[in-house]
């Protein structure tokens, strides 16, 4: 039996109204996050994975962005309707986020300890001295050598891997229930990435935090996640348990994505490709947004947009072909 979800996103719609049309960055996105699980979100640039998570944090700039509808339920509160105060209490405290570029998300003119201590002081009733002690403690937990000294350093003195550790320390300082990690290792080298991923897994177990892990890297998502959701052009196209998704992908986009990435065991002369380009979000194709690139396209795909349906107890997909196959298998 699955536990109660800790976070429920229902029919989230985050649009951007621009001069060249409405960009539906997150369009009717629904998913749950369960306690202590890692939910991976994978997709190519512009698929809406970051906007979905920024919406959870209410970090989308409005305007040009606009929350057009949906609910985000966390701890009995609908974040979409919550007051500024309530959001401040959640953001950085109960749900926190780490970003891709650790240099631009750290303030260059404050010392590392001050930045972590600030987060602690905002959310907990402690004085500066205690907060700084906690900050040093956090730096030690994220595996920074000589944390007392690093605490007094400015961000520029740290390497990319160290900066990302500082970001993780800051995000976990208030023991959040959910940690959103937006491409946390994309800017890092492979050997450093391996260190940071291991650290995140260890800390997640220690803190019993749920993690929403966003990346475009299929290898990283496979190793980090319990469940994975695949996004394309603002919509979820498939959501399943990680092993199920990678061993038997159902949506043609998921299948194409996995085939087109050379893995360490890929052989042969050519890579399988998904034809065409990622569509422009303000000029989306009719029906299923993937249909111009889909090798299995049918008439219905061009006219009607498939909704995300349960395919099995552990899998959802949005594809007419998958729906058909499911009906066939019932008969």
């Amino acid at each position: 039996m699955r536990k109660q979800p800790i976070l429920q996103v229902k029919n989230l719609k985050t649009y951007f109204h621009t001069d060249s049309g409405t960009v539906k960055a997150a369009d009717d996105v629904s998913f749950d996050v369960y306690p202590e699980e890692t939910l991976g979100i994978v997709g190519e640039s512009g698929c809406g994975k970051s906007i979905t998570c920024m919406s959870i944090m209410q970090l989308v700039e409005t305007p040009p962005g606009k929350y057009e509808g949906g609910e985000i339920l966390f701890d009995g509160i609908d974040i979409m309707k919550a007051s500024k105060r309530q959001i401040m209490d959640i953001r950085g405290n109960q749900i926190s986020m780490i970003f891709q570029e650790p240099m631009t998300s750290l303030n260059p003119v404050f010392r590392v300890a001050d930045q972590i201590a600030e987060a602690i002081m905002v959310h907990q009733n402690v004085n500066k001295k205690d907060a700084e002690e906690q900050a040093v403690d956090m730096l030690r937990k994220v595996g920074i050598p000589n944390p007392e000294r690093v605490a007094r350093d400015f961000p520029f003195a740290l390497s990319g891997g160290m900066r990302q550790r500082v970001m993780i320390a800051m995000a976990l300082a208030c023991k959040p229930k959910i940690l959103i990690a937006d491409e946390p290792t994309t800017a890092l080298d492979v050997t450093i990435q391996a260190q940071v991923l291991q650290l995140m897994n260890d800390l997640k177990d220690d803190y019993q935090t749920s993690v929403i892990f966003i990346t475009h890297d299929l290898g990283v998502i496979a190793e980090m996640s319990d469940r994975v959701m695949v996004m394309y052009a603002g919509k979820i196209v498939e959501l399943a348990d990680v092993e199920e998704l990678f061993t038997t992908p159902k949506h043609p986009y998921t299948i194409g994505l996995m085939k087109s990435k050379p893995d360490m065991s890929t052989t042969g002369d050519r890579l399988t490709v998904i034809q065409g380009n990622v569509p422009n979000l303000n000029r989306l194709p009719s029906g299923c947004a993937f249909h111009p690139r889909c090798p299995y396209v049918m008439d219905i795909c061009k006219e009607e947009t498939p909704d995300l349906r349960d395919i099995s107890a552990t899998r959802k997909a949005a594809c007419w072909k998958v729906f058909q196959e499911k009906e066939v298998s019932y008969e």
Partner: protein
Amino acid sequence: MSDTTKQDALLRVDNLVKHFPIRGGLFKQVKAHVRAVDHVSFEIERGKVLGIVGESGCGKTTLGRTMLRLTPPTDGKVYFKDIDVFAQNKEEMHKLRTKMQIIFQDPYSSLNPRLPVSEIIGEALMQHKLVENKTEMMDRVMDIIEKCGLFPEQAFRYPHQFSGGQRQRICIARALVLNPEFVVCDETVSALDVSIQSQIINLLKEMQEELGLTYLFISHDLSVIRFISDQVGVMYLGEIVEYGDKKQIFDTPRHPYTEALLSAAPSFDFEKIRTHKRIILAGDIPSPVNPPSGCRFHTRCPYAQPLCAEEVPEDTVVEPGHRVRCHIASGKITVNR
């Protein structure tokens, strides 16, 4: 290096060194050097792909740029066929450039935004006087555009009207229109989305087979290197620490750094995820300004012994065509793996 000397080497790199001076102080004296490329030697056979893999700051980009003389070398030689690239005068070099091309990582900053695609691609043809007039130029441009998977009508558009993948196609067309023999691909697919990346990799392979090209393919992505290369060189802090056939490097790596790199690469092969014990290297990549003494990898090497900090390991040929720079491979130290 003598073990792989063959007659048909298109490119021979001999002890190439590139140091960047760091200046500072009152009279801008040279205070130190960034040792970006340090005594690198290899050969690339005609029609083959040499993959260079390594992490940021290991010198792989500098290696590619120095080989093409886009930046002056500190020491060493590069031979293209039998031509000593660094000994050419300006005019000879200009001629040679048509034979040696480069494709960069970022398709957004490497195309002139003020020129239409036809000009971007045709400019070099005119510059090198490979065509008589504009009509001939357009013929060549249209020909290569189509080969690279773009439509003829797109030739008159400007770079901002294209997506990242299409721009990279333009960059490839620009390099190939001169009929080069050798192309440096510097992280050519790294900035692209997965589904576009595979299209570009296939295009590069097709072009290589059709035109008989030789590539130096620089990437940090092991799976891409494994897919496209014939030979692979692994770089760490300016040195090639292991060099060999693709199979040798990926199936039987001998250098602890190669081992760790392969092990750290994330994979979505579940068989592997379940059984695989990951080697996680401690610490950060040291600065190439003051590389560690002895073996440059010893500060992070799980097998390091006192000797490694003192003595620089020599290239050891462990199999024909497979050389490793490590005291374990040379038998100077023994460890239990």
